[in-house]
Each structure stands twice: as structure tokens, then as C-alpha cells.
């Protein structure tokens, strides 16, 4: 199928798709006026009954906590997939690739980048921990804080040489951290079941709403998810980086 024919075929199909979108969306109520009782019920109940002030975290980890378990394992499985795809095949010779394109000079890392990265590592780390632990109080949560923590690790890579970075952040540690975070979710759920409720049904005392100990198990799940996401994102990005850097070192 030639490119021209493909384009014309797409334009015709896109016109048909646009017409079907139009017919479907015109049946919906106007945006902003859709009526839903489930959402209003969760909003009304989240502070009095659950003591959680961030309704989205309440939905994620308490009302629909089981779905978030699936979501975390989607992330875990994709990190495993990326590691498998980027693994260096043992049978390919290491000297086969050219690590420098002809005529392209790789500049050394500038001092400005190093200083800025060094200054930013600690605040980013602190901010990531703040977002993870205050997930049930203000907007934030395990996933967002986890990615910010992974960014802090990568800033560490920017301001150090690769060898120093590898010594500071060994691969095993990141892998174990990620696995621990993923297991923590299931272990907390099992502990809830063992304490006489259902899987992931809260049994810890709900603290005062607005403090970081509010919400019972939601605070613990946030920590587990933050650890897992930080480890997962760091592993995925390091898998992309690793072959790139080790070739340059030879």
C-alpha cells in the first residue's frame, strides 16, 4: 500500500470516525453538568468517616484500593519488561558498535550543570518525601512522590561521574527497594485480612484528619507505593542509560 493511498484511505476513515464521535458526544450531557451520585457521596463521606482530606487519595487507596493494587503491578510488570528488553545480549561482541558518530564531538559535562544538580538533589529528595507522606492530606500520593524521588536519584547521576553514581546507588539496592515496595502493598492487605477484616479493609486507628497519621493504612500504602514507583522509574531509566554509558567507558 503506497503512502499516498494510505493517506487518502486514512482521511476517508477519519471522516467516518469524526462523524461517529460527533454522534456519540452529542448524546452526552454538556460538559460540566454531568450528574453523578457516587462522586458526591465520596466527597461527603471522606472527611467524617475516613478522616482523609484528599478525596482522590481516599478513592485510590481506600474506596478502590484493589484497583490501585492492579495499577501498581502494571508498573512493576512494565519495568520488568523494559529490563528484559534492554538487557545486554551476551552473544553480541562488545566492540561491534561505534561509540562515537564521525565528526560529532561529545562535550564534557559543564560545571553549571554539576553545581545546579548538586544544589537541587537535597531539596528534590525532601520534596519527594513530603509529597509521599502527605498523600492523604494534600494533593500528592505515592505515585507522584515516587517519580519525584526517582528524579532526585537521576540528579545525583547528573552531578557525579558514572562510577561514583554506581557506587552510591547500587543496582541491587534499587531492585530490592522496588520489590519491597510492591510486596508491602500485598502484605498490608494480608495483615488487614489477618486482623479480622477483608483484604485491604482498614483496621488501624484513623487519626485526626489533616495530619500525616490520618487514614489508617492509607499512610502505609502511600509509603510502599512511593518506594516501588521510585525504584521502578529509576530502574527503567538506568536500563536505558547503562549500555550507553558503559560503551563510552571502554
Amino acid at each position, binding site marked *: 500500500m503506497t503512502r499516498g493511498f494510505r493517506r487518502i484511505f486514512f482521511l476517508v476513515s477519519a471522516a467516518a470516525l469524526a462523524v461517529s464521535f460527533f454522534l456519540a458526544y452529542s448524546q*452526552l450531557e454538556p460538559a460540566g453538568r454531568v450528574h*453523578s451520585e457516587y462522586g458526591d457521596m465520596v466527597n461527603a463521606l471522606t472527611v467524617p468517616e475516613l478522616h482523609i*482530606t*484528599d478525596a482522590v487519595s481516599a*478513592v485510590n487507596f481506600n474506596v478502590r484500593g484493589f484497583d490501585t493494587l492492579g495499577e501498581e503491578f502494571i508498573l512493576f510488570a512494565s519495568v520488568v519488561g523494559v529490563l528484559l528488553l534492554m538487557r545486554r545480549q551476551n552473544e553480541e561482541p562488545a566492540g561491534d558498535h561505534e561509540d562515537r558518530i564521525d565528526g560529532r564531538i561529545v562535550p564534557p559535562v559543564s560545571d553549571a550543570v554539576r553545581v545546579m544538580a548538586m544544589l537541587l538533589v537535597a531539596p528534590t529528595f525532601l520534596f519527594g518525601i513530603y509529597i509521599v507522606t502527605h498523600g492523604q492530606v494534600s*494533593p500528592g500520593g505515592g*505515585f507522584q512522590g515516587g517519580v519525584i524521588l526517582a528524579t532526585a536519584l537521576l540528579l545525583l547521576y547528573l552531578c557525579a561521574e558514572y562510577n561514583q553514581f554506581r557506587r552510591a546507588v547500587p543496582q541491587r539496592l534499587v531492585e530490592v527497594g522496588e520489590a519491597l515496595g510492591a510486596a508491602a502493598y500485598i502484605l498490608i492487605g494480608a495483615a488487614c485480612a489477618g486482623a479480622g477484616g477483608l483484604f485491604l479493609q482498614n483496621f488501624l486507628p484513623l487519626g485526626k484528619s489533616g495530619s500525616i497519621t490520618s487514614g489508617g493504612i492509607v499512610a502505609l500504602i502511600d509509603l510502599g507505593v512511593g518506594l516501588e514507583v521510585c525504584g521502578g522509574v529509576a530502574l527503567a531509566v538506568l536500563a536505558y542509560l547503562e549500555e550507553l554509558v558503559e560503551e563510552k567507558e571502554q
Partner: protein
Amino acid sequence: MNHLPYAVAAWLFLAGLWGVITSRNLIHLVICIGVIQSSSYVLLLAIGYRVGRVAPVFVDIPANTQAVDPIVQALMLTDIVVEVTVIAILLGLAVQIHKGHGTLNPDRLSKVSG
């Protein structure tokens, strides 16, 4: 405002699909798949929004203030996680395809045998 978010969602979907079909580079194609996924964000956002209400965070406002729908926002969070996982794996596949076939052009890939 009445139906503009739905129209924008449809436009994002069609624009991303156009990018996928007329792409000459596998990495460009993967990014266009990301644009298609962002059309679902706009659609969910439009469904969850209530005119005149505030964000569903009650840390500094009284607890019985009317707020937007938080269930749909939780769905959007899962959607964003799925986007990053899909794009990570697709980029890994693109890199492996380039290692095996030497080219990132989807038109030239179909002619390689074996």
C-alpha cells in the same frame, strides 16, 4: 464550553492517529500514541468536571463544600500510569528493532525479511 472538551478529545484522537499513520520514524510514532492516550484524559476530565465547584481537597476548606468528582480523577491517575508504562515498553521495542534491522523507518521495515 458545552461540548468543546468532547470536540477537543476527538481532535486529539484523530491528530494522533494521523501522526501514527504518516510517521517515518518509530520514535515519532510512539510519541503520537502518547497523544492518542491524552485524548482520553480530556474526555474523562470533561465528564468529571462540575461547573462552579472546587477541587476535592478539604484540607483548608470546610468539609461539606461542593467539589468536583474524585472518582473520575482517580481513573485519570491510573490512565497516566498506563501511559508511561506503555511508552516505556514501546521505546524499548523501538530500540531493539533498530538494533536488529538497522533502520527506524516503518516503511522500510516491512521489506526486511527473516
